[in-house]
C-alpha cells in the first residue's frame, strides 16, 4: 500500500523525504480518485474526465519513479490522444447515455464484490510480503538510452507494437470509410 512503510523511521513532514512522501500520497490519491470517477460516473464524458485525472496521476507517479520520459509520454499519448479518441468514440456512439448494459442478474452484485475483495486482499498480502529494495538506476531516464534500448534489445517488441498500431489505424480507416458512399 504505502511504500514509505518500508522506511523504518517515520520522517518529519517538512524534511525532504517527508515532503516527497506527501507528494507521493497525493499522487496516489489523484490516481485513485480519477479511477473511481472513471468507474462510477453516470455520464460517459465524466468517466473520460476521470480517466484523464487518473492518467495524470499515473504520469506523476512515473515522474516520481525517476522516468520523466515515460511520464511525459503518458500525458502526451494517454491524455492527449487516447482520451480524446475515447471521447470521440463516446460522441459517435452514445445517443442514450443512461442506458444500462442489459439487466444485471441477482448474483452479479455479490459476485463482483467477492471478486474485487479477493483481488484486493491478494494485492495487499503481496505488497506486505514483498521486499522493497531500491533498484539501481538504469540510465537516469535519458532519452538517448531509451532510444538505444528500443533499437537494440527491445527492437522486436518495438516493431510488434508498431504493427499493432498500424493494424489499428487501418481498421479505423476501414470503419470510417465504410460510412461514406464514395
Amino acid at each position, binding site marked *: 500500500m504505502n511504500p514509505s512503510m518500508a522506511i523504518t523511521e517515520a520522517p518529519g513532514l517538512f524534511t525532504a523525504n517527508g515532503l516527497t512522501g506527501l507528494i507521493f500520497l497525493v499522487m496516489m490519491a489523484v490516481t485513485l480518485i480519477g479511477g473511481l470517477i472513471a468507474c462510477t460516473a453516470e455520464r460517459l464524458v465524466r468517466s473520460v474526465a476521470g480517466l484523464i485525472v487518473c492518467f495524470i496521476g499515473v504520469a506523476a507517479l512515473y515522474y516520481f519513479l525517476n522516468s520523466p520520459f515515460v511520464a511525459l509520454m503518458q500525458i502526451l499519448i494517454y491524455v492527449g490522444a487516447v482520451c480524446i479518441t475515447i471521447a470521440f468514440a463516446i460522441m459517435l456512439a452514445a*445517443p442514450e447515455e443512461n442506458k444500462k448494459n442489459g439487466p444485471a442478474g441477482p448474483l452479479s452484485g455479490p459476485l463482483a464484490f467477492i471478486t474485487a475483495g479477493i483481488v484486493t486482499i491478494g494485492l495487499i498480502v503481496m505488497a506486505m510480503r514483498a521486499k522493497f529494495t531500491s533498484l539501481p538506476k538504469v540510465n537516469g531516464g535519458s532519452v538517448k538510452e531509451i532510444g538505444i534500448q528500443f533499437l537494440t534489445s527491445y527492437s522486436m517488441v518495438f516493431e510488434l507494437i508498431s504493427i499493432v498500431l498500424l493494424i489499428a489505424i487501418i481498421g479505423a480507416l476501414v470503419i470510417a470509410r465504410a*460510412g*461514406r*458512399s*464514395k
Partner: protein
Amino acid sequence: MSAPIQLRPDETFLLNVGPQHPATHGVLRVKMQMDGEYIVKAETVLGYVHRMHEKMGENRTYAQYLPNLSRLDYLGALGYTHGHVLAIERAAGIEVPERAEYIRAITVELNRVASHLFWFGAFVMDLGGFSPLMYAIQDREHILDMLEAVTGARLTYCYYRFGGLYNDVDDDFIEAAKRFIPRMRKSLKKYDALVSGNIIFQKRLEGIAPVSAEMCRKYGATGPVARGSGINFDVRKNEPYSVYPEFDFDVPVYHECDSLARYKVRMDEMEQSLRIIEQGLETLPDGPIMAEKKPKNIKLPVGDYYQAVETARGSFGIRIVSDGDKNAYRLKLRSPTYSNMHLFDEACEGMLIMDALAFMGSLDLVIPEIDR
C-alpha cells in the same frame, strides 16, 4: 466540392441559426436539420422585421409613402425610391427634366457602390476576414457624406420627388464625386490585392454553392445572384429606364454559378457604376430639376402599373393598382432579396454549414427588405 453525405435521419439534429446570429446580418432565422457539419434540410423563417409596408401603401398618399421605400433597404435605399417615383411618373405621365434624371442616376449609382462596399466588407467578415469591412466602410463613408450633403440623410433618403428632385446638387458635390472616382478605383485595386487573390478566400468560394441558371429562373433570382449564374439580366439594360440608355456601361456576367462568381459580379459592378457616375458627371446637363407641369395631389388613373428597377440587390418591382384615388388601392413591393433568399433552402442542402453561411453572405441579404 463538399463530400457526398449519407443521410441518417435518426442521427440528425436541429440547429437553429438565428434570429440572432452573426451570419444572418439581421433578424433572419434558418432552421437547419444537420448531419454533423452537413445540412440535410433547411427552412428559412422570415418575418422578424415585418412592418406591413404594403398596407401602409394603401393608407398613405403616394407622396406620403415616399419615405417608406427607403426603409426597405437601409443600404441601397435610393434605388427603391427611384422605383417608386418612376412608377408614379409613368402612370401619371409626368415628364422629368433631364438634369433630374441624370442626378438620379448618379446618386443611385453612388448608392449602389456604397451598398456593394458594405456587402463586400460583411461578406469577407462572414468568411472570417475582419479588416476589409473597415476599409470598405471607410470608402463608403465618403459616399454617405456626399449623399448626406445633397439629400439630407445618410441612409434613409427621401430625395426624389415625383417629377424631379428635392434639391439640386451643388458644385461641391460634383467636385467631391469627381475626386471620389479615382480614389475608389484605387481602393478596388487594393481590395483585389487584399482579398480576391487570397488563396484561402478562393478556396472558400470556388465551386461552392452552385446555383444553376435554371434554378435562378424557377425562383426568380435577379441581380448579382442571377448574373453570377451566367444570366445576362440587368433591368437597366433589359428594360432601359431613366437615362441609363445614354450611358456606356457593361453588365458583368460570370458563368461559374458559384459564390466566387457572385463576388466577382459585385466587384465588377462597382467599377461599372463608377463609369456611369463618371459619364453622368461629365454630361450633366443644366436646367430645372423639377417638372413644371405636375399636379399638386397626385392621383393615378384607374389601372395597374408596374415598374422594375435594378437595385443593388436585383430587380425591384413595384406594382400599383389604382382605383383613381390619391392613394393606391393595392401596392405590391417585389423585393429582389426575397426571391434570392428563397433559393437558399434548396441550394444549401448537403452543404457544410460554413459553406452555407458563406453562400448566404454571397446572396447579399438585407433582412428588412425581405420582410418588408
